[in-house]
């Protein structure tokens, strides 16, 4: 009986229609851009029309296809060495996204572990870890990256290490805060009374309930890592040529901004779109999963 009656009641009040949940624009946009970017990155070798390193000096500095001197086979134009911009963006995306994801994973592993230990055990472990966090927060990360790269030499691996090793503090702080409140919750005391010892308590009861902020921070950190990598590459500290990265492309294009704007603009747009998508997705995740964190 209830369904027709409730439906009839619902139909009578126009308010009912307005409060129906709509699918979030942010989620749809963010997710589709990321899937698109991710797909492009994974299938770059198949999708890219040209070898990104192939220099075709006779076709250098050609504008995008829809412009006057543009060529159809180079939709986004060519750079100062005649390399196809589109192919370089596709391959560059592999680096940017790949490095970003790996670095986020690394920093999450370090940060979450330290945050759990600091928050759960408190006392001296907490004080010690928090002092380290303070130190890391005080040092500008670019400076830190420069130091490490000069010491160890620039390479893909070192870039990931540097990024992971400097950004873990974001995870540590937020996990620690969550754990501090979680460990006072009654279900933790109950679990302890029923035989859980500390390690099991941490992994089985505390950590799963701290996942929400971790996921949210991870998406936001991914956005940051992409920019971080681009900045490092721009400064010459990141992945070395001939591997194309969006940061390198920006650096190269810097000198041609007035004459060949497409060298820097398209990689810049790629960075912007990706970061925007990740941020929007992160915002949506935050709002859906944990209204407490709403800023």
């Amino acid at each position, binding site marked *: 009986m209830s369904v027709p009656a409730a439906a009839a009641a619902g139909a009578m009040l126009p308010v009912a229609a307005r409060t129906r949940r709509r699918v979030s624009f942010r989620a749809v946009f963010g997710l589709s851009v990321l899937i698109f970017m991710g797909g492009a990155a994974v299938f770059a070798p198949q999708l890219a029309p040209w070898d990104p390193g192939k220099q075709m000096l006779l076709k250098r500095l050609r504008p995008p296809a829809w412009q006057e001197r543009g060529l159809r086979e180079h939709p986004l134009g060519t750079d100062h060495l005649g390399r196809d911009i589109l192919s370089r963006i596709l391959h560059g995306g592999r680096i940017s996204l790949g490095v970003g994801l790996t670095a986020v994973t690394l920093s999450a592993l370090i940060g979450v572990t330290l945050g759990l230990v600091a928050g759960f055990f408190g006392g001296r472990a907490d004080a010690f870890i928090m002092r380290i966090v303070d130190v890391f927060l005080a040092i500008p990360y670019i400076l830190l990256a420069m130091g490490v790269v000069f010491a160890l030499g620039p390479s893909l691996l070192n870039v990931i290490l540097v990024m992971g090793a400097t950004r873990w503090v974001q995870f540590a702080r937020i996990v620690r805060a969550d754990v501090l409140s979680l460990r006072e919750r009654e279900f933790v005391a109950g679990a302890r009374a029923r035989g*859980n010892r500390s390690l099991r308590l941490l992994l089985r009861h505390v950590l799963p*309930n701290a996942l929400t902020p971790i996921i949210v921070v991870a998406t936001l950190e991914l956005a940051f890592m992409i920019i971080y990598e681009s900045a490092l590459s721009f400064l010459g500290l990141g992945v070395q040529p001939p591997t194309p990265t969006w940061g390198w492309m920006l650096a190269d294009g810097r000198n041609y901004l007035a004459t060949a704007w497409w060298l820097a603009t398209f990689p810049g747009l790629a960075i912007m779109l990706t970061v925007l998508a990740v941020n929007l997705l992160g915002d949506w995740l935050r709002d859906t999963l944990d209204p407490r964190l709403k800023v």
Partner: protein
Amino acid sequence: MTGPFLEVRGLEKRFDVGGAWLRGRRRVIRAVDDVSFAIERGEVLGLVGESGCGKTTTGRLILRLIEPSAGSIRFEGHDLLALSPPRLWAARQRMQIVFQDPFASLNPRMRVGSIIAEPLAIYDRADAAGRRRQVAELLEVVGLDPAFAERYPHELSGGQRQRIGIAAALALRPSLIVADEPVSALDVSVQAQVLNLLMELRRRFGLTYLFISHDLHVVLHMSDRVAVMYLGEIVEIGPRDALHREPRHPYTQVLLSAVPVADPRLRRERIVPKGEVASPLAVPSGCRFHPRCPFVFDRCRVERPALRRVGAGHDAACHLYDER
């Protein structure tokens, strides 16, 4: 087994509250201050008091979920405070706890069945099939359909969640259960169901309860003996009927007269207490209740009264009952 089932002597818990080097003096909260009592096997001891009296802390101290600052706890003949961590871990099987807040006392990320089965797995009581069987049995014992094992806590009502908490506490077949405000967050009709369940389980499994609540009528209903706490101390302890009909300590009298009764015929002589419940940070000298006591005299401000016998098995900590 030698000695009483549970015996607590001189139990203390002090919390340091900051402000030490800024103010020049360390501030200490004596949440539990020299508390002693004993519980016989199969008995229900009620622990009642208002906020800040230390009853919840006492409950957790007994299970060593919090470490005492001083005192002794003997349970089934063992000195609980002298147990090594592995022995303590083993001892936990015999003593369990049920909490107040059904929303907060179950892990929101675990299915109900896993919550109940977990202690069985940790203590290696049964294999996977055996655990499933016991979970189903326990659910039935607390009056729930075994199909509930697949649900998550947020899908259940407050009363159902509380029953799950009880089932989880029963999983290891303990002999002692500390019930910390088990019905305070429930509607009156659900409260009655859960109280009935607790009474029936006690009968069926020979359980012993420490029943903690701020609700005086609920405590009186459930308990064989009742202890009244105020600001970290036990001020009166005795058999339920004696304490209810002839409360000796002024605070107990105030408490009994303050509780609203849903029966206009049963109105007590109203003693409206003065002042606020004192803060545990600024505990009055002498008898802690003296600023609010209608019968206060000089000695009360200076000397802290000890528990004195005032009737059969009935003690009160009040200078009024000192013959001197």
